[in-house]
């Protein structure tokens, strides 16, 4: 299966569709986080090492926190997104679609130890390529999933044109296709609109812009406008 879409049923009885993220964007997000941590730790080290041996101790504690707890804190407190994941539009969630919990996040991040083996996330990468939902070993143990964050959609209404009643009866799928065409029409160039409308001369009984207008009119009628 090439499709990474997973459906999760919520307690409300509706299905959430989640798009699991592949290894490439996740590696990129990790690289962003890694670079960021490197820069911050480096800047702190310059500051702290001026404080002598006590500063060295603090530096080691900071290093420890950044290495083990940076991802956990961000994932739980910032809606499943470290800075790198946010930049790449990714989010960690529990496999049932709920926000990732403390224990799950701790497990998936501690398990990086194993995913990192034998070098540069070798095990994690192979596991992610094999698993249909792109989970590395840590995700499997923690029961978590990394998904793409969908951009918020605003529903674009189909253009309000005079209603046209089609000459032949159409089934539900065909009606849905016409409505989808009308709703997306604003995002298409006029040339592309005409090109698409010209596929259906027998339905619209016209070609070119007239055909487009007739299809839009039919969409209005299917949507229930008067």
């Amino acid at each position, binding site marked *: 299966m090439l499709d990474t879409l997973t459906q999760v049923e919520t307690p409300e009885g509706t299905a959430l569709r989640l798009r699991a993220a592949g290894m490439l964007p996740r590696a990129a997000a990790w690289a962003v986080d890694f670079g960021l941590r490197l820069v911050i730790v480096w800047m702190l080290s310059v500051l702290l090492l001026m404080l002598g041996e006590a500063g060295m101790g603090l530096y080691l504690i900071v290093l420890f926190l950044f290495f083990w707890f940076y991802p956990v804190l961000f994932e739980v407190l910032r809606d499943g997104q470290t800075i790198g994941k946010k930049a790449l539009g990714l989010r960690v969630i529990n496999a049932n679609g709920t926000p990732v919990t403390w224990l799950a996040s701790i497990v998936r991040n501690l398990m990086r130890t194993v995913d990192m083996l034998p070098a540069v996330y070798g095990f994690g990468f192979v596991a992610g390529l094999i698993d249909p939902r792109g989970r590395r070993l840590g995700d499997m143990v923690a029961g978590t999933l990394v998904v793409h964050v969908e951009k918020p959609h605003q529903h674009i209404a189909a253009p309000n044109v005079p209603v046209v009643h089609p000459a032949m009866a159409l089934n539900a799928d065909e009606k849905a296709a016409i409505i989808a065409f009308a709703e997306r029409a604003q995002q298409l160039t006029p040339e592309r609109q005409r090109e698409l409308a010209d596929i259906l001369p027998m339905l619209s009984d016209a070609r070119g812009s007239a055909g487009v207008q007739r299809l839009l009119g039919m969409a209005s009628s299917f949507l*229930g*406008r008067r």
Partner: protein
Amino acid sequence: MKQELFQSHHAHEWDALEQWLTVRGRPRHRDRARDGEGVNGDLEFPALYRRICQHLALAERRGYSALLIERLHDLVHRGHLVLYRPPPPHMHRIVSFFAADFPSLVRAQWRAMTVAAVLFFVPLLLMIGLLQWRPELAHSMFDVEQLAQFESMYDPSDKDKRLGRESGSDVMMFGYYIMNNVSIGFRTFASGLLFCVGSIFVLVSNGLVIGGVAGHLTAIGYGEPFWRFVVGHSAPELLAIVISGGAGLQIGMALIAPGRRSRGRALVEAGIIGAKLVLGAFAMLVFAAFVEAFWSSIGWMPNAIKFSVGGSMWLLIVLWLLRGGKGNAQVIA
């Protein structure tokens, strides 16, 4: 109902949810007051969210346009993330975790814990005993520079060192112990996922090395400064490594012998248990690092105090692990 009518009936509800999610979906800390008067719409949110779940189901069933379904799906997904957000950790949960849940969990996993303790303490004690009988074996374990380094750290004739340090270097060593020991604890746990092999390896090798150092220093007559240094933090540190190892072993066992569960299910369950165990071990290791850096390093303290504190530490921690949370009706894990 045609789509246009449906939209005109319900669009205000969708806009209201969208508005609420934007404003109150993740309120900033200072805005996080309870919404008793209902001005922010927090009280209506669950009902509104569930209505829109129904709208989504209707829209899909009636074959409304893909864009409309996408918008409703987006609202439902965002609402879902807010409604099922994990609660913030409460102080009393943390206290009851350490007082009761963690020790009970350690006892509930007694098989893994026993195996881990055997894998760690048997090589450790064997090494100590062996090096008293055949001290020259130390040279087949460590090379000359390593031995020289251990010896210089605990040399009883060197009055300046005797592990009495400046406070600045105490903080440094605290940082070092945290970074080093806690990371070892975490890795001992995580590497159990490799069919237990990683945890077994870390436990046995640490047992051998620690036993080797202790045995060697005792055999050459440096025992007193060594034991008075380590006795204070030995209990939390060694037991935490054993618990991390046990947590790793039970993950590995979930993979090897999942029983009547699927492997995936068994792994997730073992992962939650392991995370709780490792959290407890983490606290123990931080405590051990604190003791090691700020108590064990005090040079002038008489031996009697050092050893009695170390002994009571063992007693208290073992008692805590064996008795903590007993009599709680609460079922854990």
